[in-house]
């Protein structure tokens, strides 16, 4: 991908727009958030994101240290050191890179380090593929990181900045993955509003790292202690750490809402923080979507509406922590649901979002039929026509026609 931005525009202090791909929008959001250290290792389809960041640092448009390290494991280890020293950090990865990062990656939430990292989601191997899919993000959905999935290129930029405010909130203090779909969002080029740097500075305020465990020679402290086991204070200490982590995740549901509302007030762009309901109020049938597929799904909903069908849509933005209340409120409105996943739950013979939607459905106190649709694996497209088919099959549930197994949308493409 070639850069199609105008460097000079970022140097001015006026709100402006650029025409850029999703990866560049993420890089611009990172630049506006003024991280102290960016550590990177390139991997498709994330590479152009770190190329844009490297260029911004080389040009002096972003005053950060760039750590060009030997692999993703070193990326995360290095950034843990930076965060423990009080620095604001950024990295981005996906797929096999995330797999290589896994060991320090899962330690980060327990260390309560408020990092922000883009996941430019990619399907997992094998078979060999280098293209988009959300399997990588879904594999780590219980690693303790917050996960927010973007629908549009603009939302990538906005969410990247918001992520720092959410992660660094003292009631949260957890790392965040801002997820955007490899290929369709990472390389999709469109118009993006770039907020004014001063306004972003005002919005974010000074970096608020985890000062409690920040390394400080005048205040020596053991960080990441050995605890747990079955004796002494171990069990209760370990539970205390884990409960704190879980509480931080639950607090994040409130903080994510507050930060999205504050962003809307300041910049005029209101993104649904947890769950978006689209044409749902008088709907009897709904699709559940996540990520960049949602735009085409909304088009398909509009077409169904034009035919007089009472169809709506529920989009999940925040998947971790799972927005239980918001999902229950949305699911309670409809009689039948089709959940569209861009990944697979190998254990349950369905998509992961489908499985979790069933979990939320229990809390509505009613049992309604739900179909699992799986599409867009390994770079496959989910078009308006695919969604039209998903809507038609979901509506057929009212006549008792339930496939009782996942529908693979690209099976005959």
């Amino acid at each position, binding site marked *: 991908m070639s850069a199609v931005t105008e460097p000079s525009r970022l140097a001015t202090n006026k709100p402006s727009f650029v025409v850029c791909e999703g990866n560049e929008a993420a890089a611009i959001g990172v630049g506006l958030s003024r991280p102290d250290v960016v550590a990177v290792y390139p991997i498709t389809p994330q590479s152009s994101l770190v190329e844009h960041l490297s260029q911004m640092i080389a040009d002096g448009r972003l005053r950060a240290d760039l750590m060009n390290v030997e692999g993703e494991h070193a990326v995360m280890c290095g950034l843990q050191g930076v965060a423990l020293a009080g620095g604001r950090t950024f990295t981005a990865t996906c797929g096999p890179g995330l797999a290589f990062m896994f060991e320090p990656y899962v330690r980060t939430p327990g260390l309560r380090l408020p990092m922000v990292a883009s996941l430019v989601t990619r399907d997992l191997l094998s078979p060999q593929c280098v293209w988009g899919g959300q399997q990588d993000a879904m594999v780590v959905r219980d690693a303790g990181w917050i996960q927010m999935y973007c629908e549009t290129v603009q939302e990538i930029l906005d969410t990247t900045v918001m992520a720092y405010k959410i992660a660094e909130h003292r009631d949260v203090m957890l790392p965040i993955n801002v997820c955007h779909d490899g290929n369709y969002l990472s390389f999709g*080029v*469109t118009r993006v509003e770039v907020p004014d740097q001063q306004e972003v500075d005002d919005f974010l305020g000074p970096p608020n790292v985890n000062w409690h465990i920040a390394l400080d020679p005048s205040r020596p402290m053991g960080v990441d202690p050995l605890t747990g086991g079955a004796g002494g204070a171990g069990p209760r200490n370990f539970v205390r750490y884990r409960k704190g982590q879980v509480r931080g995740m639950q607090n994040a549901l409130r903080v994510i809402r507050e930060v999205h509302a504050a962003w809307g007030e300041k910049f005029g762009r209101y993104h649904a923080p947890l769950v978006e309901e689209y044409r749902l109020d008088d709907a009897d049938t709904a699709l559940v979507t996540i990520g960049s597929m949602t735009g085409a799904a909304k088009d398909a909903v509009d077409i169904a509406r034009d035919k007089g069908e009472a169809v709506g849509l529920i989009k999940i933005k925040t998947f971790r922590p799972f927005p239980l209340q918001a999902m229950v409120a949305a699911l309670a409105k409809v009689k039948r649901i089709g959940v569209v996943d861009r990944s697979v739950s190998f254990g349950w013979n369905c998509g992961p979002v489908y499985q979790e939607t069933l979990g939320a459905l229990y809390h509505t106190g009613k049992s309604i039929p739900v179909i699992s649709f799986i599409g867009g694996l390994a770079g496959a497209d989910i078009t308006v026509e695919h969604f039209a088919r998903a809507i038609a099959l979901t509506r057929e549930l009212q006549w008792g026609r339930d496939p009782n197994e996942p529908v693979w949308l690209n099976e005959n493409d």
Partner: protein
Amino acid sequence: MHETHEVRIHGRGGQGAVLACSILAHALIDEGKHAVAIPSFGFERRGAPVAAFLRFDSAPIRAMTNVYHPDCVVCIDPTVPRTVDIFAGMKPGGTVVLTTKEKLADLKFPDFVARIGLCDAVGIALSIYRKPVTNAVMLGAFARTSGLLTLAALKEALQQMDFRDAGLSENLSAAERGYNETNVHDVHDVQKVAHAAAVA
């Protein structure tokens, strides 16, 4: 009433089809339209057939998907049509812009094509860059054939780009020559073709 225009650009890796799509999006957005450019993707190999997609409209565009039913096909490489069906899925009454040295009478087009723009983009590119990099030339040819974009807007967008392989003045002159040296042929009455398709 708004109408979504869908464009598909065919080329080979290294000719800049994907970048051309971005430049088009840039130019159209600067003219106040909504536009989304999406590249098809494979392993980025020089010489392999590639395609890039563009949607634009006066209304916002939500679908981040490839284009399957283009109303305009631009082919920036003269040999790609031998291996790729560049007309696949085209809407009736569509526009095709080709780089070729041939005359219209020596070429065959499907019946549903209504307007054809022909430009010897390889020849122009060789004289400007000494390389057959045809993307800027073909952007000029697209502007001329489709009438959906002015040459001035295209040149304005080119001026905003960072180019890796060529200078701005070369690219501006390539776009201008593409615009001026494209022969546009209306081969069918668009209404008739659309009507025939509706009847069929």
